[in-house]
């Protein structure tokens, strides 16, 4: 593995019984880059992330550079409203397991733009956007080298999504964190990702957004013409 490569995936395949989710998936991720994973529903995007973090059985190989610390932000979680667990309980639990500094909860909360007052709020009573940002804050404890985010902007309003994009960009540029994210928002993918992995049963491809997100290629992936807006302010 090259020094500049943080992740190498070779001939990765996942099956559920007789049903193949994807197979023969090979790609590399450069340290400090951002990889967007796109594809239609059922293409196996979440399954791919589960394989990358080691909670999904697979064939082939997934090799992270030794010592890589991974943070994972799952898709929307279903939390009971009356669960007596506060944001502070949740972040402190991670701090304790990671043997991190006691100031970490406040640092990571500020990093994702949440107020310290939120620490006393029960996680089940938070809005979707607040909880999503709390999960990102949680993943940042212990200074991860790579962050995997499964549809991080789902359930967020437009300003929240903007803030999230700014946070991720700053993590990548200021802290050198490698970002892997799943998204259905092709405008965000086009403006933010260094590489795009199009996951599609039997035919997955990877490349820079301007090569992969072409009208013809998108029609092949999704089976229907897809249009998206390119923000003028976007671009790396």
């Amino acid at each position, binding site marked *: 593995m090259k020094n500049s490569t943080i992740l190498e995936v070779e001939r990765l395949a996942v099956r559920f019984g007789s049903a193949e989710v994807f197979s023969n998936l090979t790609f590399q991720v450069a340290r400090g880059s951002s990889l967007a994973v796109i594809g239609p529903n059922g293409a196996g995007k979440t399954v791919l992330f589960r394989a990358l973090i080691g*909670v999904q059985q697979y064939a082939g190989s997934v090799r992270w550079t030794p010592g890589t610390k991974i943070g*994972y932000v799952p898709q929307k979680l279903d939390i009971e409203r009356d*669960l*007596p667990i506060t944001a502070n309980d949740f972040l402190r639990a991670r701090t304790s397991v990671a043997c991190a500094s006691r100031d970490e909860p406040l640092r990571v909360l500020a990093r994702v733009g949440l107020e310290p007052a939120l620490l006393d709020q029960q996680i089940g009573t938070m809005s979707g956007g607040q909880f999503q940002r709390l999960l990102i804050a949680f*993943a940042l404890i212990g200074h991860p080298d790579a962050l995997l985010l499964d549809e991080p902007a789902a359930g967020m309003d437009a300003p929240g999504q903007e803030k999230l994009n700014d946070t991720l960009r700053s993590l990548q540029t200021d802290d050198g964190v490698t970002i892997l994210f799943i998204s259905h928002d092709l405008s965000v993918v086009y403006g933010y990702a260094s590489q795009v992995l199009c996951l599609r049963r039997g035919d997955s491809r990877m490349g820079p957004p301007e090569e992969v997100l072409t009208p013809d290629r998108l029609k092949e992936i999704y089976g229907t013409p897809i249009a998206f807006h390119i923000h003028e302010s976007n671009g790396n």
Partner: protein
Amino acid sequence: METRALVLSTEMAVAAGTVGCFAVMRKMTLAADAFSHVALPGIGLALVMRLNPLLGAVAALMLGALIIWGVENRTGISTETITGVVFSLALAIGSMMASGEELIDALFGAPGALSNTEATVGLVGGAAVIAFMLFARDRLLISMVSAEVAATSGINVRRLNLAYLAAFALTVALGLRYLGVLLMGSLIIIPAATAKRIARNINGMLAIAVGVSVASTLLGTLIAASIHRPTGPIIITIAGALFFLSLAWR
């Protein structure tokens, strides 16, 4: 009540309160209650073999925990479903093995002097459960929110689940003398359910669950001794009354 019985029942109640908090938050309420019945065939077998019933109960509960954990990991079937099957089977086998007064004692708990084996297993087992819950509290909390997030936090979720089931099984075994097979699961669940309604954070929940569990156990044991009735039903009646009182709290 003799001193060691007082210490033992308090320790059992503390273990039940803390273990119960995570059972309730993990939505294992019914499974947790049913799980305590798994002790019955072990008690029956121990009585047939003229061994201490407590040892039979511990063995059966640990085996039950291993079966539930193994089938869950292998098949992905929920804890609730597997526990339902294992519990029904255990109750059927246990009822065939034990009979008459022995069965009533096993089902509802029996007052009387503690044997040295019971006292030793109880004290060591109770301390082990409480130490485990203090150590694993943060890991259990994270894995309850998301198993994937726990895995990327360096937590071995499968091993943690097995250890938790073992702690649960041991807690049930500790309380069998006082509450019996039918009601021990209730002492794990009811104080925690009460605490979940009132508490604002995890420390509050643990403290309230332990408080309700200890108060119900000690008060119930004292009342049972003074009116010469089995301890289990009285302890659970008190815990149940506290739960209904808590409904008026928020």
